[in-house]
């Protein structure tokens, strides 16, 4: 499948009807999602035939993309029933059979991964960036993802946190590669946004494990 094809298929994914502010719900754009997944597969072969997890899957854009690129199976985790319901109807409409969904709190999985520990080849996510109320949640998602993956973790983080993440990666003994710098143009979805859209600089990062 070509990049343009993937992007146009992902445009079919229906997104949040009423995004929840507290959960930082917004869809990963088809453009960004397609580029992420396409890179993951063509440069690193981390999608096709792999067991993939999507932490904070939301409406399932990343899951859908992974499935379209031939992931063996993709397990989407999200805390919100409404998001999962939307994700599921997307799977039905797009006839994606290889997506499994679990309603769970990723921040709890970090301390009790149970059998998800090192269960996945690849973890992909667009984690919540953290607001005043849940500062640090992006790192909790990252920690959890690294616990669950055997080969690689692909994640999006604010460029402003890059140095902090570099430090943590070293501490956790994982390799970190900032694959691309993106700009998120988040439309003003929430009533309190003063401007029409917010521009955030975001890094697309690949984490992997030095030879075991």
């Amino acid at each position: 499948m070509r990049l343009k094809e993937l992007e146009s298929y992902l445009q079919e994914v229906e997104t949040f009807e009423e995004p929840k502010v507290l959960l930082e719900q917004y869809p990963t754009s088809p453009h960004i999602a397609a580029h992420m997944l396409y890179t993951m597969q063509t440069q690193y072969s981390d999608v096709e035939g792999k067991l993939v997890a999507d932490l904070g899957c939301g409406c399932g854009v990343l899951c859908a993309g992974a499935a379209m690129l031939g992931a063996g199976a993709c397990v989407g985790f999200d805390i919100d029933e409404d998001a999962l319901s939307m994700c599921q109807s997307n799977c039905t409409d797009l006839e994606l059979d290889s997506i499994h969904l679990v309603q769970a709190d990723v921040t709890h999985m970090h301390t009790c991964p149970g059998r998800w520990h090192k269960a996945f080849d690849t973890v992909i996510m667009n984690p919540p960036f953290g607001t005043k109320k849940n500062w640090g949640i992006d790192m909790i998602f990252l920690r959890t993802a690294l616990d669950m993956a055997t080969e690689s973790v692909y994640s999006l983080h604010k460029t402003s946190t890059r140095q902090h993440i570099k430090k943590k990666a070293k501490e956790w003994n994982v390799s970190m590669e900032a694959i691309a710098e993106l700009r998120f143009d988040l439309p003003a979805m929430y009533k309190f946004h003063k401007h029409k859209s917010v521009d955030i600089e975001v890094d697309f990062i690949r984490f992997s494990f030095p030879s075991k």
Partner: protein
Amino acid sequence: MLLSFRTIMRLLTHNMLTSHVKGVTNGYPLKLQAENIKVMSVDFNPEFVARMIPKLEWQALIQAAESIGHLGDLPRELMPEYESNEEFLKMAHHVLMEVEVIEGNLECPETGRKFPIKNGIPNMLLNEDEV
């Protein structure tokens, strides 16, 4: 409308789920109580299935499949060189990926606490006093 939803709680997922309620030491495997099951057809990828098998608790899979009447001829023990046994892999694929539990419960073996399955999605969220 519910009936036409494609549902997603399959036995591959079930095999990985544990109860993490505070104080529980034996939260696995969760007893599967299915009220509504569907069988679907999913593309068979033998290499993928072969790679998944070492991740599984095989007996928990057998138990779960049997409890919902979908064990079929799946062997109760793994045989040597199962990775190249295409017939076996096909059966494993069917049980892991093609049998869907739409509605039901997952019951903790230690406490009996039920985690509901609604529209094929298991709800593993814990209450405040369980964390």
